[in-house]
């Protein structure tokens, strides 16, 4: 490591980068739960990153960084809906206000959560992994997955929910055990 004095711009960038990496998964989840199409969600997340980086001077450090990002994301999501000629349907402001402290409570470092999830996913059986692949990698809708494996869309939704819930419990359990 070098101990050279930091240039103010460099310090600012470092501050932004640190905050971004801490908040990115919460932001990603926030966007993905409202925009189901992964590529579109990715685009919105990237746009939020770029806008936040450019306007980082306007961020008030007294507020949670995630709250600021969620505000930018809400504008981008509303814009996305407008481009689709659809009325924006998003989490309400009240829901966001309730979610932010809950997200702040999730103490684990992003990398710890990734590690825990990686281990938990290794325990899924092949059918469960197939469902995850079809939903998250191939971006198929529940209807398309149901066609693919011969069942109903609502069964797929329930199966996927059970997998997500099992992963959630496993991740939280591992994070608690490691703490």
């Amino acid at each position, binding site marked *: *490591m*070098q101990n050279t004095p930091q240039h103010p*711009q*460099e310090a600012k*960038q*470092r501050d932004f*980068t*640190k905050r*971004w*990496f801490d908040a*990115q*998964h*919460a*932001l*990603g*989840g*926030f966007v*993905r*739960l409202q925009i*189901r199409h*992964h590529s579109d969600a990715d*685009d919105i997340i*990237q746009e939020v*990153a*770029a806008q936040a*980086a*450019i306007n980082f001077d306007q961020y008030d450090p007294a507020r949670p960084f995630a709250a600021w990002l969620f505000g930018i994301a809400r504008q981008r999501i509303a814009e996305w809906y407008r481009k689709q000629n659809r009325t924006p*349907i998003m989490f*309400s402001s*009240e*829901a966001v206000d309730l*979610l932010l402290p*809950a*997200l702040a*409570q*999730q103490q684990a470092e*992003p990398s710890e*959560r*990734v590690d825990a*999830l*990686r*281990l938990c*996913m*290794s*325990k*899924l*059986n092949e059918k469960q992994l197939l469902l*995850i692949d079809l939903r*998250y*990698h191939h971006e198929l809708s*529940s209807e398309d997955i149901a066609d693919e494996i011969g069942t109903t869309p609502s069964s797929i*939704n*329930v199966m*996927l*929910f059970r997998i*997500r819930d099992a*992963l*959630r419990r496993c*991740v*939280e359990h591992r994070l608690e055990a490691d703490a």
Partner: protein
Amino acid sequence: MYTPSNDKLLCRVLSGPLTPELSSELDDWLREDPQNPVLLAQFMLLENLIPAVRKEFSAESILALLLQLENDAEPIYITQDVERTLRKKAGAIVHDPLVRLFACVACVVIVVSGAFWALSTLIAANTASTAPQIADQQVQADETLVTDERIVAMLTASYNATWAMPDGMSDPTANDALHPGDRLTLTAGFAEITTNRGAVALLEAPTTIELFDNDNAMRLHDGKLIGFCETASSKGFIVRTDDADITDLGTKFGVIADHETGTLMHVFSGSISAGGRADTVNANKQLLLKAGQSAVANPNDGLVSKPEAAAAFLPKIDLSAADLPITAAYTQAVKQLNPLAYYRFEERVGNEFRNEMGDRFTLSCFGDVVSKGSDANRSAVFEDGFLETRQAIAPLTHGDYTIEFWARSEHEIMCHLITLKVTSKLTNAVLTFEPALRFEHRADPSNSAGSGDTISSGILSKTGQWQHVVAVRSGQEIRLYVNTVLVGTAESPRPLSTAPQLKIGSNTKIRSPLQLDEIAVYDKALSEQQVREHFRLIANDEMRLRRPVP
């Protein structure tokens, strides 16, 4: 409180889409119990991580799996990628799940002692990937170009690759492990290298790279590299050149390093941070670039943004074969955009060529036009004739439209390629080789060249190569793309006033045969991204690489 009815609500929220009723129910539920927002927050974090982790392939996950296996009797699902690396590590062939499990146990015995050392190194590297600026310093510290046996990356694919390796070293092949200090010079073709943390570097010859003791970084001495960082762990991938350190923030980006002109960088999607190297005049300079932006770093100009330079990153591929290498993916991509007409010229039935999109706008043949080529890969060859729809294409008067096609001729020619005609004398859009490619949009039909909104491209017909041509009218502008490069734009305030017929080819005899293929007519404007995607589907098939060239 967590109850079965909560399951139902969460299942609906996670399955989507959100409705006003569901949003209102969610608000009530979140208020009901302080634990409920915590539950939703945990699902939110998971929703973002699952896709990334599922795709992930890194030494870190292999080591974690091995360590877990030691403590956990339950069987572990191992992906093919992991299996391949395990095989390399264990030197064993692993076939079925049972043997695989035993092989893993054997691996544990071999590597577990080293794993703790490696894991601690990985944790250090993890710090590097989660904070690019910190990573920057990490790279400086780690840049020890001493060969060691630790695997930091793998050569995951190559196409027509030839290498200039130091004496005594054999050419790398797909699935070869790469170590700190490995220096690779690609003299022809393409190669794809995946770092331990999952970042993919697509190299196009001539290019030289060098690896150092870092799981997610490489030095680009000279040449062209396109980086893909699509997994959570790959973010923070660093490309170091003589002039700059380019750090990914979750993106696709390109870097060209040249000893004379410096470093050119461009972001295709996402964003990157570029910092001047500490030992150069650009020290302490930082730029954040987002999608569509470019920058250059060199001793003369400093580190500065520059006009979009995506064209510099187009693959230099050979499309001189007589048959255009069309794939099912290409035709599917075109059809998904629902063009009004799509002509593939696979078969001439009587005097007609069919429209792949339905019975409307079939092409009738006048004069000498034939379908030539290999099976399922034919094109229309024009010498002394043309094709024409019997019906007018009314939707083209609605405003936006796009005409997309591939053209090839052995020699310089002057002829009409595509015409939107109202009568035999009056036309309202023309694409011609004169011999440079020209696109003219005439709101009111006319027989006078130059009476409309015009783009003269300067792109000549004499190529012997297939060229991808896309003429777009969008809003109040016309655009012309050749091989995805925007070669010109012009103002175009008014749409077509009269519904035209589509005419392909010329009335007069052409000096050298003209080949046209995959002609698609849309009643909407294709975006630059869609134009690139179509070109990429051809180019990529030619290269047979896993990662698409942006």
